[in-house]
């Protein structure tokens, strides 16, 4: 009798809300709350101690955290720009292919089909200083007679991780930009040729403005992906050597599970989310501007 007083829409939506609450809202609220406690996995009762913003203050005054934060931003910037440029080049090349374009497009997507963990293992092997293919190749070519410590040297390690990241995700850019290239009308390009543009000028003044929205969509998606990079780093270096490749989320993971300081880790995570939101907002702004510029009707 009581149920019938609820209107049909509410009744029908109720199960969905229930599931959402169980898997999203409650964990979110709980983790947010725990970031205000000294919660340690080894001391469950610590969940009920409220310490206000002390975790946040500790995090924000921690040198290690800021180094990881800065390194993540650096990693993000280098990886995104490299992927963007390589993806653009790849898309332009594939779009010029007269024959076998479908095959090329499929091949191009192969790296996306690998789990990041596998990519990590694969590059860990490639970059191995003893048995890795890269050192082997360099030595066989006579370019060096030393074993370059790709994953052991602090600077080279981050570089190696970037290479793995770029390898696995350039195709995201390539495919989105290729979609833009295929969707764009041919006529303005021909008009530009007639108007006196060299191929380079045509790209700069006509093609690129068309592709920008697609590039920004890819940027938005990838910035979120890269900002939460964890798996590749975890497999390849686990943040080492001596924390020289520690990124935000590997630090969060270590704090949460190795150190069991869940409350502190949650505080870091919530702060890290701010970074992601900022990037998203920035790229969406750019995207909206670029779309308006080409008068896109989508």
């Amino acid at each position, binding site marked *: 009798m009581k149920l019938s007083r609820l209107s049909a829409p509410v009744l029908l939506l109720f199960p969905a809300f229930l599931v959402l609450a169980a898997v999203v809202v409650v964990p979110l609220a709980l983790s947010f709350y725990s970031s205000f406690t000294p919660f340690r996995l080894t001391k469950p009762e610590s969940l009920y101690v409220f310490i206000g913003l002390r975790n946040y203050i500790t995090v924000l005054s921690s040198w290690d955290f800021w180094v990881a934060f800065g390194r993540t931003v650096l990693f993000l910037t280098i990886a995104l720009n490299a992927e963007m440029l390589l993806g653009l080049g790849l898309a332009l090349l594939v779009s010029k292919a007269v024959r076998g374009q479908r095959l090329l497009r499929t091949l191009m997507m192969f790296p996306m089909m690998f789990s990041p963990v596998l990519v990590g293992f694969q590059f860990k092997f490639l970059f191995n200083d003893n048995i890795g293919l890269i050192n082997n190749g360099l030595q066989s070519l006579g370019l060096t007679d030393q074993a370059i410590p790709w994953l052991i040297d602090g600077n080279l390690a981050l570089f190696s991780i970037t290479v793995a990241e770029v390898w696995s995700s350039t195709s995201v850019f390539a495919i989105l930009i290729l979609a833009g290239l295929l969707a764009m*009308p041919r*006529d*303005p390009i*021909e*008009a*530009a*040729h*007639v*108007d*006196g*543009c*060299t191929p380079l*000028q045509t790209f700069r*003044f*006509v093609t690129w*403005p*068309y592709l920008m929205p697609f590039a920004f969509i890819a940027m938005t998606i990838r910035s979120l992906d890269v900002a939460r990079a964890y798996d590749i780093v975890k497999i390849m270096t686990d943040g080492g050597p001596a924390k020289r490749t520690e990124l935000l989320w590997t630090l969060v993971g270590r704090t949460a599970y190795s150190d069991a300081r869940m409350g502190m880790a949650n505080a870091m995570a919530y702060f890290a989310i701010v970074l992601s939101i900022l990037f998203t907002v920035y790229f969406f702004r750019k995207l909206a501007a670029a779309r308006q*510029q*080409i*008068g896109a*009707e989508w």
Partner: protein
Amino acid sequence: MAPVSLKKLVKRYGALEVVHGIDLEVKDREFIALVGPSGCGKSTTLRMIAGLEDVSGGTIEIGDNVVNDLPPRARNISMVFQSYALYPHMTVGENMGFSLKIAGRPVEEIKEKVADAAAILDLSHLLERRPSQLSGGQRQRVAMGRAIVRRPDVFLFDEPLSNLDAKLRTQVRTEIKKLHARMQATMIYVTHDQVEAMTLSDRIVIMRDGHIEQIGTPEEVFNRPLTKFVAGFIGSPPMNMDDVTVDDGKLVFATGATLPIPPKFRQSLTTGQKVTFGLRPDDFFPTGHGLNSGDAEAVAQLELPVSITEPLGNETLVFVGFNGRDWVSRMLNPRPLPSGQNIKMSFDLSQAHLFDLTTGNSLVA
């Protein structure tokens, strides 16, 4: 300002040849229309002149230079596209001034030239807008503005009116004609619409399957079509045509209907010869409602049933049953005609056309 000359121009896509060695001399400051059904090679020819398609054989000369291997930017041409092809991220003014900007001209000069062109095309109040904020007719005017700002040697138009509605089409057509008078430039205009070709051009080039069927002034191609194809393509409604056999001073149609041999052909036809007979709707009319030919001897009359009528106000198109199908006639000073009624129809045979049955070539009287 330059003549354009095509010599034995060929276009092949792999093994498929779509333009078969055409020759065309476009005079300086001439307005030439390339017209023909889709797939006849007219757009391909224009795109070869523009440099957007490679030339497979023969030469293209603009002025005194063979331009076969020059990129479009080195040919000093402008092109107006069917889809306008404006740069959507630039304002109207930037669109029009783009070619000058690329050429590295000073900002002041660009401004001045864009303002001039905008004034000619009545676009001055739209210079800050973007193409997406314009109507179709305005966009096409911007495309024309972009073309004239450069003062090119040759203007190329690729079906510029096809995306416009009927009313705008007439309007922009007039503007193109004015533009030609004003710019005194060579213009080559591709269209599938024979009315555009007739109204705009000094000479018309009628193309079919990669060949040129006829080159001539609008009057020539209308009054003296060299082939059956041209006769059927030029003129609206199209010419009435049927095959006939010559028999003892008469033309005998398949259903047995007969007409006298047109006077001008009397000497040249022999009994048993098969030809195609053609008569324009203007020369086939309800008696008393046509153009007066002044040559009563050449007018044949038959009683024929009215099938349907299409009143246009100042005239009515009357479809009458003849030789087993509907022949269209143009009735001036129209009066209502009920369907099914038999009326007296005049065939002005002095204007009749005869074509060879196999070659399709016009038989010259």
